[in-house]
């Protein structure tokens, strides 16, 4: 009985958060239209989504990690993206088939994420310090491996992933971001794994006592986050046709902002991936709009920083529902 009422309650919050985010999307759309005359057209808006593909992918991973609770956070996502991209570039440069290289890159992302997860979950290190260390370590490794020079030995056919269009919609959105979102969203809502994630996020101890292998679940969340960052690296490499060692710079801020704005409670166990996707759309519009309006990208940092603080405080005090 209690479970049922909880489920309804959850749905209620969920639907209202979605409503709030849709409103915010509309507001951003209006502001950006005023800022730039080129902003509002179907072609421009559909084209814009390509800027959001990587943000969305990384944010989905970040959201999962934060949902897992116990101070879960992954500050290393940007660096994992950079390093995965560099690994991809190096494999291709070494003459490996591009698709095989992509698969190896995914495995690499999974392993890197698992290392974070292992340290945090099994050794019980605080996530924010481990991933700050990892942020610098992996980012610097990407730089060291390339000497700071982008690798651009990708075959022409590879550009399809990040630059192709079908019905004016970027391929990476249609075939990578949306399917992944749908799968992950389904997993989180309908599978045992998803329920366990919410469970350990709400109360880790209780979840452990009820027989859930909390450590394994948490490790998996970081592994998924690492894998999604590697997918982001593949998309970005194809988009730029180059693996830049600083490709993921600053993505941790974007991913955390997107997650928190999307309604993922920073304490864990609350929020949905649909919120994350809608919030990623808002952040993408802001970034794209500011670019079109020719406003220095550095102000994007300020907007993101403010938005992050605003979103956390809003989640706490106004309890949007």
């Amino acid at each position, binding site marked *: 009985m209690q479970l049922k009422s909880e489920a309804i309650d959850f749905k209620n919050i969920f639907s209202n958060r979605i409503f709030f985010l849709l409103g915010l999307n509309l507001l951003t759309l209006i502001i950006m239209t005023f800022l730039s005359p080129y902003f509002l057209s179907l072609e421009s808006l559909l084209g814009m989504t390509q800027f959001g593909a990587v943000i969305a992918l990384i944010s989905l991973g970040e959201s999962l990690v934060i949902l897992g609770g116990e101070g879960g*956070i992954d500050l290393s996502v940007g660096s994992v993206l950079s390093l995965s991209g560099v690994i991809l570039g190096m494999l291709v440069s070494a003459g490996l088939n591009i698709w095989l290289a992509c698969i190896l890159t995914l495995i690499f992302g999974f392993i890197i994420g698992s290392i974070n997860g292992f340290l945090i979950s099994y050794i019980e*290190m605080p996530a924010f310090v481990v991933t700050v260390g990892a942020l*610098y370590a992996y980012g610097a490794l990407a730089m060291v491996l390339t000497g700071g020079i982008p690798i651009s030995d990708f075959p022409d056919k590879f550009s399809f992933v990040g630059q192709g269009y079908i019905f004016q919609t970027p391929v990476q959105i249609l075939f990578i971001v949306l399917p992944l979102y749908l799968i992950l969203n389904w997993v989180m809502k309908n599978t045992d794994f998803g329920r366990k994630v919410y469970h350990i996020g709400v109360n880790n101890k209780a979840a452990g006592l009820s027989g859930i292998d909390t450590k394994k679940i948490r490790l998996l969340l970081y592994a998924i986050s690492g894998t999604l960052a590697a997918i982001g690296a593949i998309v970005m490499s194809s988009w730029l046709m180059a693996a830049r060692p600083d490709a993921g710079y600053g993505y941790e801020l974007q991913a955390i902002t997107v997650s928190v704005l999307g309604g993922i409670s920073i304490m864990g166990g609350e929020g949905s991936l649909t919120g994350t996707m809608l919030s990623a759309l808002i952040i993408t519009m802001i970034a794209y709009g500011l670019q079109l309006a020719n406003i220095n990208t550095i102000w994007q940092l300020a907007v993101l920083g403010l938005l992050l603080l605003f979103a956390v405080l809003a989640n706490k005090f106004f309890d949007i529902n």
Partner: protein
Amino acid sequence: MNNLFKKLENKLSFLGRRELGILIMLIIEIVFFSIVTEFFLSIGNFRSILMTSVDLAIVSIGMTLVILMGGIDVSVGSVLGVVAIFISELLMAGFNPIIVVILALILGALLGGINGLLVGYGKVPPIIATLGTMNLWRAVIFGLLGGKWISGVPPVFSFLNKSFIGIPISLILIFALYFLFWVVTNKRKFGRKIYAIGNNQECARLAGIKVKRTLVYSYMTVGALTAIAAIAYIGRMGGVEITIGNDLPLQAIAAVIIGGTAATGGKGSVIGTLLGVFFINVMQNGILLLGIPSLWERAVIGILIIVSIGIDMMSNKKEKQSLEGELNAA
């Protein structure tokens, strides 16, 4: 061997076990670089190591306070930048240096206070709060600098680079501040509150400690210390670089963690941090002398953070086990 270690421990009892560990590591490091590089072991080189370590050493005191409370502050580099620009502008406008110092301290405390309010009263996790302000101030730095360096600041603070009876004045400043905060954390009520909050915030609150207020004061202290570091920076550089403070949070966190402060809070000391600062600066210097590309530096420091927490966690577990064993035996 064990006996020797015990004797050493008794002699250096003020150091504690963690600090002794890092001291031994530092000595090994110095011996290592003395052997593998030619120019490491010289007074001139040590002097340059100390000179460059001033900002980091001062900021790391503040970082120790927040990590002791189970928090973190990644905004220190950006705060340093904003305050340094502020100082430069005031000095170039011809303000009296003493007034500049006071205003800089106030600005630093204010910027730190914002973090403190967010963490204490807003209940925002420290990493999120300071990540937000870090990027906000970073944008402000870019906006104020407009893509150019500031140079030609009147050298009123350059006396920090000089020596007083053979001892670099910046070194005297570092030791004075570390002594002050060793007293504050070990002998004063404020320090005990910090440790109490770090050990268990809820217990601290129940014990009557005003947790929110203490948090705000601590983050203000971090800000004020960062302002002092900004003064030292201006004294050393005579201007402001665009990349000012970019690596400072990483290095300060590393210094604190390597210095034996528990990443989960409640355990550690500023003395360990000072040794951690020296450890990092000696390593940077050694890497430079070995001719390894400086890109490696960040990678090594990042990995060192993770390894240090790992060692700390393992030794904690052992300590706990042996304590439990003793209890069981009794």
